[in-house]
């Protein structure tokens, strides 16, 4: 399986694996990939700000651009290519129906500032999606504008702080379990709170005693992910919500893992005050190589008045969009605005199409299948790998690196070897509460066949690791467009943009 250091061809290509330079390296002056009419000659009204020098953008024709990005695309792994078991990221099938609908005339071509009479369908769509989200979570209100999960966290924690301040309560601390996603502490800090970590117990859940010990009059709230990032349901959740409320704080739920319980448990029944929902996880809007997402936040009766602007209300004349606290239809208490315009409409369309396609029955089945798939991985791999905690797990299963003890193979090495087998690795080294974590989330859209193939590959690699063939793992991957990349140099001497040859020397300094 050794691959030569050099590709061995004249071009550097390897059959269908084609090398591709930067667009800047393919430029010819004056060439363009668009045809635009000659602009009419007018006296400019630019107030003397007309740009003088060239910008430096490259000139390519359309065929070159299409080929460039087609070639680049083939250097990516994707859900459309195979299992993508990134724990916590919920890489599930992205239906093309949703893409089609998001591009429909009357939706994609709507300007955000049109008069309300011309956007009744859009407002109804947002309202319908809100209804689904509220019903599925059992919560009375939802803020639709946040642009992603982390943005939703800001929304929720700001609502908490606004509610506290409204009653004159200046609490300072937010409790965050050690297993939390990085956005949780970062959000709390961004809202002006001190972050106070809570340890996990030996069962992978919030340590109830430690948590209770931290409670006090300056605790604004707790941020809990449930199911948590160990893939486990916080079985003492009701005690937690009771205790935080008793202490006068609020309960923020990180809903990144809502996909495990949708249609089966309503977070509202758990006593939460707010929860963001990553539409790009649970409701399958595509991740697109990093975004965009959408992070609506459901809110309890206590927090609902503080929901940020804008929001949709029902009025006599139809749907209305409330954009100001002074609007007669407003609560008047909105904590402010989080984003330009009204939210990620393109994602709303996709999420609603996804929900309507599944229906109440399908969503429940999807959650069940996601949990089944994860438990199947757990059961199939527990002999060869080391599960971090006892099952059953929820939609994802966590292993630690004890099975690699003394092999010289790290979690990273192991994951890289999986790439050569045609799989995307699982999430690694997260959550931080176990050593060398491997967090696998298969999702409900994987077939048993695909899981079985994955299981076979993981077992084979685990056995190989145990035979002591550490060099094999350290060298992996070998069959990819690029092998392991030098991240240290990248960070030490950052090259964050292309520069023309002459000046490249300086730039690298």
């Amino acid at each position, binding site marked *: 399986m050794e691959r030569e250091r050099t590709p061995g061809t004249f071009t550097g290509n390897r059959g269908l694996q084609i090398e591709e330079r930067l667009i800047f390296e393919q430029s010819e002056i004056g*060439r*363009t990939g*668009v045809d*635009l009419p000659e*602009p*009419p000659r007018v006296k400019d009204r630019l107030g003397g700000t007309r*740009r003088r020098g060239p910008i*430096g*953008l*490259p*000139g390519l024709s359309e065929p070159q651009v299409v080929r*460039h990005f087609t070639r680049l695309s083939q*250097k*990516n*792994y*994707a859900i*459309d290519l195979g299992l*993508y078991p*990134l724990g916590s990221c919920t890489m599930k099938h992205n239906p093309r129906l949703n893409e089609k*609908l998001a591009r429909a005339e009357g939706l994609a*071509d*709507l300007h955000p500032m049109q*008069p309300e*009479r*011309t956007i009744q*369908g859009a407002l109804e769509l947002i309202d*319908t999606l809100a209804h689904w989200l509220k019903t599925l979570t059992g919560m009375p209100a939802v803020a639709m504008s946040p642009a*992603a999960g*982390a*943005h939703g966290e800001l929304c929720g924690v700001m609502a908490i702080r606004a509610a506290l301040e409204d009653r004159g309560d200046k609490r300072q601390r937010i409790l965050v379990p050690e297993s939390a*996603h990085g956005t949780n502490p*970062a959000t709390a800090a961004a809202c*002006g709170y001190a*972050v106070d970590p809570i340890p996990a117990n030996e069962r992978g859940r919030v340590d109830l005693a430690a948590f209770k010990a931290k409670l006090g009059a300056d605790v604004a709230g707790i941020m809990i992910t449930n199911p948590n990032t160990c893939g486990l349901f916080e079985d003492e*959740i009701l005690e937690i919500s009771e205790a935080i409320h008793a202490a006068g704080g609020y309960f923020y739920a990180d809903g990144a893992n809502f996909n495990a319980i949708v249609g089966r*448990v309503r977070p509202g029944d758990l006593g939460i005050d707010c929860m963001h929902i990553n539409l790009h996880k649970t409701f399958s809007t*595509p991740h697109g*190589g*990093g975004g965009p997402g959408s992070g609506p936040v459901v809110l309890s009766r206590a927090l609902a008045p503080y929901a940020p602007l804008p929001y949709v209300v029902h009025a006599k004349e139809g749907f209305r969009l409330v954009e100001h606290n002074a609007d007669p239809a407003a609560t008047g208490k909105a904590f402010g605005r989080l984003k*330009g315009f*009204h939210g990620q409409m393109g994602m709303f369309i996709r999420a609603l199409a996804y929900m*309507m*396609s599944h*229906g109440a029955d*399908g969503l429940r089945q999807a959650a069940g299948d996601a949990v089944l*798939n994860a438990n*199947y991985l757990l059961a199939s791999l527990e002999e060869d790998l080391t599960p971090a905690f006892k099952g*059953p797990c929820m939609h994802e299963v966590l292993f630690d690196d004890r099975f690699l003890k003394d092999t010289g193979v790290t979690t990273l090495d192991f994951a890289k070897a999986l*790439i050569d087998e045609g799989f995307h690795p699982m999430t690694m080294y997260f959550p931080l509460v176990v050593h060398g974590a491997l967090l696998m989330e298969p999702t409900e859209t994987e077939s*048993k066949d695909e899981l079985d193939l994955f299981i076979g590959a993981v077992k084979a690699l685990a056995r190989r690791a145990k035979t002591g063939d550490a060099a094999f793992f350290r060298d992996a991957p070998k069959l990819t*467009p*690029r*092998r*392991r990349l030098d991240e240290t140099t*990248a*960070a030490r001497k*950052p090259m*964050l*943009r*292309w520069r023309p040859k002459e000046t490249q020397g300086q730039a690298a300094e």
Partner: protein
Amino acid sequence: MRYLPLTETDRRAMLAKIGASSIDSLYRDVPERVRLNEPVDLPLHQGELEVERAILALARKNLGTNRAPSFLGAGAYRHHVPASVDHLIQRGEFLTSYTPYQPEVSQGTLQALFEFQTQVALITGMEVANASMYDGATACAEAVMMAGRVTRRSRAVLSGGLHPHYHAVTATHARFLGFELDLMTPDPEAGEDLAARIDGETSCVVVQNPGFFGQVRDFSALGEACRNAGALLVMVVTEPISLGLVTSPGEMGADIVAAEGQGIGNALSFGGPYVGLFATREKYVRQMPGRLAGETVDADGRRGWVLTLSTREQHIRREKATSNICTNSGLCALAFTIHLALLGEAGFTRLAELNHAKAVELADALASTGKVKLVSESFFNEFTLRLPRSAAETVEKLAERGILGGVPVSRFYPDRPELADLLLVAATETTSGDDITRLCAALGEVL
């Protein structure tokens, strides 16, 4: 259910392997009393045809800009996006991949981001740019917070020519993070004196160019004033096409640029998803929010790309991160990059010329109706009109006639009667002569 590959036979076999009796039994850690045993009260699953019909029925209740002459702007612009852009971003390898954490199998996304960062740096005239923010407004707020970190000062001056949503988002963060804002009043005539507001506590001055009300200005002197006072100049751009014709923020001395990238490559889509552009000087890079793609080499010495400087980010740095952002606007950034790659230097500058020329044509045509007064002395592709009556009511009347005639300023400032007769009107390369004629005629009727 068409999206679920498991059959009942599969499920039985898998449960047997697990040693569980049912899927429900896997939920045993959920307290019994909160477990739902029935589907919630929502419609059952539906086929594609039914879902498509339902959503298209909603779409048909709207009047989209494809079906009506449209002069709407105010931070979101209708441009023609070449068909290949949408084709390429829909390729599953881009659409259905995650953040490029595993560079060996993410070189496509990473190289595209590196190209995006370079393009953003070039058009803004800045040294470096990140891999995108949610939108222009959040980028603006992040810029102000970053200026606070860089200068270790806590008061920001916000121009009255800044988009009110950008104002508002920044104010939200200021409230919770606890920094001060010096908010200038809305400034349609662009007469404010910003330099006078700078003092030793000023972290930054935030201006927008072209301004919210349309005017284009040279902020070089202000940049100079900031530099002298140890403050940063943050420049906001809401119409990226303007950068093809107007002197770049970098050349005017901006330290941070926060921009809305929607105008390149992205549909209006009722306001989102859009893509925030964020650029700055190289020396501030470790204070930047958001992801960065960087160049490096692989184990065989071949050039490749990785996400880098992640010690700034929440997943490494947690509560000490420069921002809490995680998911950004990757695919919108890709659309931006593809569109701008198609345009190239020649296409981008010509497109900007064309937008400006159309706006000049529109302004002249409107002025010659004698019914409206042009407020913006200078402009790029959008300007402010003063109407003889309420702009909001006028816009309603135009809508009745099937024309999307502009954005009334009162929509943003309902509490400022002095702005009630101001209308923002934009033209782009998609504005036809016929559109202009129809608008002028309709205004003749309703004013």
